[in-house]
């Protein structure tokens, strides 16, 4: 009775946590409430459910804390998405292991029990291996491009079919070996599922795998007949599904297209072989352009964060404002490596919240913007997404900076963006390119603007 009551308290905390996380004002409290609920649940389980092995459990928890906290504390804000992917993966693995262990502990099982068991093992393994691949992609330990194996599609279908067959078989004939085999096939399925997803779409895959882990946890709740696991797992499964859909909407594409529409034409080579000219400017040119403008929009991208230039851009913006220039930041919903990532990165650099404008705030007035400054961004200002139906990123909403009066494009090199697509904006006569490291260029620009 007390145990159920404590679990109820924890469940309520989790709902409040998700609710809180949905509004900027209460988000941090929401997270605290969630952590509190978790503490209540874990202490309850330990005090009431542990018959023996108590010391071993405490040692395993201590090890987890020793590994988890430093990892979470030391990770750079730019690397958050891959860290979330890893934490998600280990959660999925834990769910699969719990179901495996319970399977061996219960010799006479019902069909429903076995159904929940095979689902937990399968979804948990998919989530684990899929998350590891997303981690490798985002950490750039492997290519960020979609990987299309020869006959990859057939392999994936074969893996999916055999996993379903194994599920059915294990339900009919409860056999430990079959369940292990299912786990292995699940791991393969997770890899095959994520490999063809392109770099820019990986965050969506993480969000979906997050929902998967939630479902695996919910299914394990059936295995253990534990209401808390069912509630918490389902909450995450449902909210993760919605979140995935919202993210896909922000990219202007359907989920199916993102997951299965691996870019068939990886590089659309610029028409013809002719050398196309770009206009590059000096720091002084750009300083004059900015210093005497009325209206400037800065569009930051992941490259800004990689160069650790968030503070430099904030100082430049402050200097421009002192000269009476009105400046706003245009934050694309998928700027960075994860939806909402850029907001986190700029907040870290103390950029005031009110200066961050979304697509719908910037685009309607873009024609009256004197200078649009693109720093370390690429795909989110690529007019091809709007005009070129053949472009792999066609349909993604963009900042229409090509309609501003002039564009300054800060770039390290002519390398294409994360999605690997050439950007027509670079060749636009209105565009001035400023080559160099973003932080370096911004610092020099700041000095040059002060000289004006």
């Amino acid at each position, binding site marked *: 009775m007390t145990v159920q009551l404590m679990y109820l308290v*924890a469940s309520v905390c*989790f709902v409040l946590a*998700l609710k809180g*996380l*949905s*509004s900027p004002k209460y*988000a941090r409290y929401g*997270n*605290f409430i*969630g*952590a509190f609920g*978790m503490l209540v*649940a*874990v202490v309850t*389980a*330990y005090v009431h459910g542990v018959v*023996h*092995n108590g010391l071993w*459990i405490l040692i*395993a*928890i201590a*090890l*987890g*804390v020793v590994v*988890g*906290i430093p*990892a979470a504390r030391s990770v750079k*804000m730019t690397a958050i998405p891959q860290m*979330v992917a890893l*934490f998600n993966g*280990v*959660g999925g693995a*834990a769910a699969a*292991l719990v179901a495996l*262990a319970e399977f*061996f*502990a219960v010799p006479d099982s019902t069909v429903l029990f076995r159904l929940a068991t095979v689902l937990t093992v399968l979804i948990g393994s998919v989530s684990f291996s899929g998350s590891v691949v997303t981690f490798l992609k985002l950490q750039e330990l492997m290519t960020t491009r979609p990987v299309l194996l020869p006959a990859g599609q057939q392999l994936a279908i074969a893996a999916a079919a055999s996993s379903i067959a194994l599920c059915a078989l294990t339900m009919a004939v409860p056999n430990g070996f079959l369940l292990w085999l299912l786990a292995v096939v699940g791991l393969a399925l997770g890899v095959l599922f994520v490999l063809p997803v392109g770099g820019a779409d990986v965050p969506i895959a993480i969000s979906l795998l*997050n929902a998967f882990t939630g479902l695996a*946890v*919910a299914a*394990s709740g059936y295995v253990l*007949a*534990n209401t*808390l*696991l*069912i509630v*918490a797992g*389902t*909450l*995450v499964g*449902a*909210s*993760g599904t919605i*979140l995935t859909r919202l*993210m896909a909407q922000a990219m202007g594409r359907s989920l199916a297209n993102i997951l299965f529409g691996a870019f068939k034409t990886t590089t659309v080579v610029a028409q013809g072989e002719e050398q196309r000219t770009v206009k590059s400017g000096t720091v002084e040119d750009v300083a004059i352009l900015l210093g005497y403008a009325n209206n400037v929009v800065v569009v930051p991208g992941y490259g800004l964060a990689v160069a650790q230039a968030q503070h430099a851009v904030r100082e430049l913006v402050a200097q421009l404002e002192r000269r009476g220039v009105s400046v706003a930041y245009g934050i694309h*919903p998928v700027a960075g490596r*994860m939806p*909402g990532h850029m907001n986190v990165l700029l*907040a870290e650099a103390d950029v005031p*919240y009110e200066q961050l404008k979304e697509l719908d705030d910037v685009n309607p007035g873009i024609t009256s913007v004197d200078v649009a400054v693109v720093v370390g961004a690429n795909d989110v200002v690529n007019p091809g997404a709007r005009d070129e139906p053949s472009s792999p990123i066609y349909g993604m909403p963009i900042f229409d900076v090509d309609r501003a009066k002039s564009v300054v494009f800060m770039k390290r090199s002519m390398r294409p963006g994360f999605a690997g697509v050439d950007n027509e904006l670079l060749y636009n006569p209105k565009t001035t390119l400023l080559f160099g490291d973003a932080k370096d260029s911004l610092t020099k620009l700041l000095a040059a603007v002060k000289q004006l």
Partner: protein
Amino acid sequence: MIDLLTIFVLAVFVGFEVVSKVSTILHTPLMSGANAIHGVILVGAILITGSAESTLELVLGLVAVFLATVNVVGGFVVTDRMLEMFKR
């Protein structure tokens, strides 16, 4: 069994309802926060290990406890670090 199913279905609706209106600004922290919550599998892992009879169960359970703990503490700490920067 039908009780558990009832709980499941109701939780689906709550989950959908709770995040249906979240702004894009908070997508990353919300994903990370939800991530920490599914670390509740730690409860399952503790229960399994606490009643394990064979070495196999014990080993599987302990690995699960370890992994789930990483999920829980890592998830909450990362989320807090992100949200700390929004508080102003």
